[in-house]
């Protein structure tokens, strides 16, 4: 370890924190603006030029509110839960390569680490709901668990398919294999498996469900229910959950970009760099927002049916198909 290593890590820590904070704050604005555009409204316009300072105003408002712990609630767990939701997203970003050399810590099992920390999110929301001592929060927390468990399975099956094709869990190596142009991306790697685009769609749907986004957000259902598992949270406790939602979307879109869309590789084979990674990642983030304001919320039974009756069988079939193709063509 060289002398500069601690400084490098500190720089990455600060960078990651700033990146997540900035994204969480400004994606809320992008979401509101996006929703407004789709509904032919202008969205926030009053705070700053074109509403650009709105997230800061929202943040100040949330910070100035009292953090109320409901009587009889488990105060420690209640306070820890928001942190536990946000922290895994930050951890995941440590191993995500933004560019050829721009990664906090590249490890050869980076993909496993991302999914391991991604799963903590579920437990933290459940803790939050449980510690609130509120029946609505507990019911909603139970729903979140069954939803996320149901969607973890097809997601991991899809990722295993991808791992069999790439043969590595090193995220940088996975991206390096996709160099050259968009026809080399895993999304279009039809020689390995003709159903690769379907794989991407399954991954994307699972990512929406894992991050509890519309149309799979009946756990929170802000337009009908109170706030699901976050019912009892006030002020910045709720704010952190809110930030975590967007941080998790960013992490999910980062992973989707790395696994399927060639990470920092250029789609036309020219000038690979961080720029392309951000373009692809934010395009995915935009599509997440677009989907939220297009589709109504699904029913809970339909949500589970979609996972157990469609996504899991299809992803199992894709897994078997790619296994067979690897056996036949690559012996």
């Amino acid at each position, binding site marked *: 370890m060289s002398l500069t290593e601690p400084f490098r890590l500190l720089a990455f820590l600060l960078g990651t924190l700033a990146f997540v904070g900035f994204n969480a704050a400004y994606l809320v604005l992008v979401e509101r603006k*996006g929703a407004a*555009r*789709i509904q*032919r*409204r*202008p969205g926030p316009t009053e705070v700053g030029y074109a509403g650009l300072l709105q997230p800061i105003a929202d943040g100040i408002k949330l910070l100035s509110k009292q953090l109320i712990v409901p009587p009889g609630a488990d105060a420690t767990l209640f306070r820890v839960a928001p942190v536990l939701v946000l922290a895994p997203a930050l951890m995941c970003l440590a191993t995500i390569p933004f560019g050829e050399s721009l990664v906090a810590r590249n490890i050869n099992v980076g993909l496993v680490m991302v999914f391991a920390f991604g799963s903590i999110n579920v437990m933290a929301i459940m803790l939050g709901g449980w510690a609130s001592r509120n029946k609505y929060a507990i019911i909603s927390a139970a729903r979140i668990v069954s939803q996320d468990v149901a969607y973890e399975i097809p997601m991991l099956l899809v990722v295993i398919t991808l791992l069999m094709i790439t043969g590595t869990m090193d995220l940088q190596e996975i991206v390096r294999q996709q160099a050259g142009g968009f026809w080399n991306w895993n999304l279009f790697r039809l020689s390995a498996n003709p159903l690769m685009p379907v794989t991407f*769609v399954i991954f994307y749907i699972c990512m929406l469900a894992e991050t509890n986004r519309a149309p799979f957000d009946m756990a929170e259902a802000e337009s009908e229910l109170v706030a699901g598992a976050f019912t009892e949270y006030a002020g910045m406790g709720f704010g952190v959950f809110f930030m975590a939602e967007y941080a998790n979307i960013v992490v999910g879109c980062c992973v989707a970009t790395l696994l399927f869309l060639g990470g920092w590789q250029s789609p036309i084979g020219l000038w690979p760099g961080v720029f392309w990674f951000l373009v692809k990642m934010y395009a995915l983030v935009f599509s997440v927002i*677009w*989907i939220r304001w297009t*589709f109504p919320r699904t029913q809970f039974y339909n949500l589970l049916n979609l996972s157990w009756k469609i996504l899991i069988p299809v992803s199992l079939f894709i897994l078997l198909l790619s296994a067979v193709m690897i056996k036949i063509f690559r012996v």
Partner: protein
Amino acid sequence: MKNSLGEIVRGFTSLLTGMRVTLAQSFKPTVTVHYPHESLKMPARFRGHIELVRDPETGQSLCIACKSCEKACPSNCLFVEGLKREGEKRKSPTQFSLDFTKCSLCGSCVEVCPTDALRFTRNYNLAGTDKSAFLYDLLKRLQTEGR
């Protein structure tokens, strides 16, 4: 098997259609009027609270204090008093007040008026901190607005 696969494909294409619709909508111009900064012009038949019409010749009200409006009002929100001044052929109002808290904007007063001395305003920006803000002295309103 074949049916359910077809269902998945049909469902997926319908989702894409929905996304195309919302994307197309998002490129159309917004329809919002930024209310405090700009406001819509009220249509000609909008019913705000009533006001007295000015006689273009004399600059005074057309009202002859006949009290038909007072009688016609179903919620008793008009109070009219008048007297016959020297050298005038008709009576003229000395008091014409409206309790807008009771008014239901039915328009009976406007309809019944024999000299067409009443009309609706297009005033909708009404707010007050107590009830007395909505007790309008329409005669005074006519006089102060003239200047």
